[in-house]
């Protein structure tokens, strides 16, 4: 079993490198991180926080929007592409299980996310150290937290992308669905919650349902966890009060549950594919 997963991992990684997905993902992460890091390095003495914490607050938003997008772009072709090339029935006729194929593909795609996030946020850290010297050390734990939670968020959306790929069975349809999912999960969901909170005007929804709905979305869970886990980051984001009203374990649990849930959804969708 490990050999077949390893071979699938190797071949998928080779494909991803030659398709330039890695260069595209890294370029996007580094570029946006650099812009936000330089903006965050402007004098911020009034807030009483170090510059790296300020940068991490902006990078958190970058993770919320960009990591799901990159993950979906990398994974939407996973099953639909094999169907289109006619290779899916062949792989399934080999002594390899559907689960092994998915795990191999997910692992290779996750490597791209890990490399892109580490290089992007590493660049941001270097900019912060460049401008404020060792004073930026205070923000380092927050940055590391952002790195590993972003990788978890990437794993969630990679699996969701694989699920979409299995459900749509044509790469073009999968690409469309992936964009739709991204819009709903990271843009429309928050807008909907905002509208509901405004309409509710401090009623039961705002106090009882809203916090749960916020935590239930993996992208929002990442945001809340990172803002609430560090006072400095929370202060820099100006959302400390809102974020800290939710216990830390809730968003973290949500993120971890989503990693497993999304992988399960992808596996279930793949099971339904008749080659």
């Amino acid at each position: 079993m490990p050999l077949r997963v390893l071979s699938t991992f190797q071949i998928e990684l080779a494909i991803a490198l030659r398709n330039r997905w890695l260069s595209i993902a890294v370029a996007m992460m580094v570029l946006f991180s650099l812009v936000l890091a330089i903006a965050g390095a402007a004098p911020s003495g009034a807030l009483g926080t170090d510059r790296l914490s300020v940068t991490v607050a902006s990078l958190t938003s970058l993770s919320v929007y960009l990591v799901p997008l990159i993950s979906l772009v990398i994974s939407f072709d996973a099953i639909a592409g094999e169907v289109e090339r006619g290779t899916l029935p062949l792989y399934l006729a080999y002594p390899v299980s559907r689960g092994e194929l998915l795990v191999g593909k997910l692992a290779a795609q996750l490597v791209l996310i890990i490399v892109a996030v580490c290089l992007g946020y590493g660049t941001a850290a270097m900019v912060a150290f460049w401008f404020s010297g060792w004073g930026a050390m205070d923000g380092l734990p927050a940055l590391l937290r952002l790195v590993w939670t972003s990788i978890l968020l990437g794993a969630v959306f990679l699996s969701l992308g694989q699920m979409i790929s299995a459900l749509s069975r044509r790469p073009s349809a999968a690409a469309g669905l992936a964009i739709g999912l991204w819009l709903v999960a990271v843009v429309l969901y928050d807008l909907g919650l905002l509208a509901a909170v405004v309409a509710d005007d401090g009623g039961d929804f705002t106090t009882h349902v809203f916090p749960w709905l916020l935590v239930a979305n993996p992208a929002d869970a990442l945001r809340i966890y990172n803002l609430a886990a560090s006072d400095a980051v929370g202060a820099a984001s100006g959302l400390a009060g809102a974020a800290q009203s939710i216990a830390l374990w809730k968003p973290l649990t949500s993120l971890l549950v989503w990693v497993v849930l999304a992988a399960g959804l992808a596996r279930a969708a793949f099971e339904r594919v008749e080659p």
Partner: protein
Amino acid sequence: MTMLQISNLTKRYGGQTALDGVSLSIAPGERVAMLGHNGAGKSTLMKMVLGLLPPTSGQISIAGHSPGSRSARDLTAYLPENIAFHPALTGSEQICHFLRLRGRPAQEADGLLAKVGLADAAKRRIGTYSKGMRQRVGLAQALIGSPALMILDEPTSGLDPVSRREFYALLDELAAHGTAILMSSHALSEVELRTDRIAILSKGRKVADGSLSALRRDAALPVTVQLRPRQGCSAQVAVAFPEAKQVGGILTMTCLQTDKLDILTRITTLRDTIQDFDFFPPSLDDIYVQISRSAA
């Protein structure tokens, strides 16, 4: 002993019947060609043998194992129709991957690619390959580990006549070592005389199963005879063969297989007036069309 045993296999999609009570058995070392028009159920049958599709009813056994089981997958090689592999990989990388999936050493890749005539292209990306070369990559992966059962879906499509000969030579070699081969094709002329048995599917039903000579006999198609009279003898020959049609100085008629000798006798009695004659047996495609039609 049989390598593949299919009994009474039926597959329905909603109200549509893709395959209707088909039975087929293949012994080790036997080469069976499955013919049928597009949508006759050839690919459906193959996918059920591989365990990729569940049958609606009927049984399949691969050397006693159920389709899709680990043992059955270990024994079976498959070449899907119109396979295109990932264009970013080289032929060598793709075959190494398939070898590792079967738990075999990746060093075998060079030998397999050389066997299908891709030794020189092994390090090039599949995206630069022609259709025939991609088909050879598919064939190379099907040769991994000398499988006991080979399922080949339209394996000769995209191959030029020379490659097709080489392909059949490979099949002969495998069959000689005991591999049971089931291949599909949409034309009898593609299969040539290189298979032991031919099964014909039409609209999901098996309408013929036998050797080529048996099919030729069953089709009972007439032989075409052409006569070329000597200069100035046309009228004389036309009178002697009133059943013949005359077009451009050549007389054409048909006769039953069993009447060939009678015609030949009549021709020899007129040897002074006839310059040349030809017998045309029904072509392989004629036989195939006839059998498919008569069953429908």
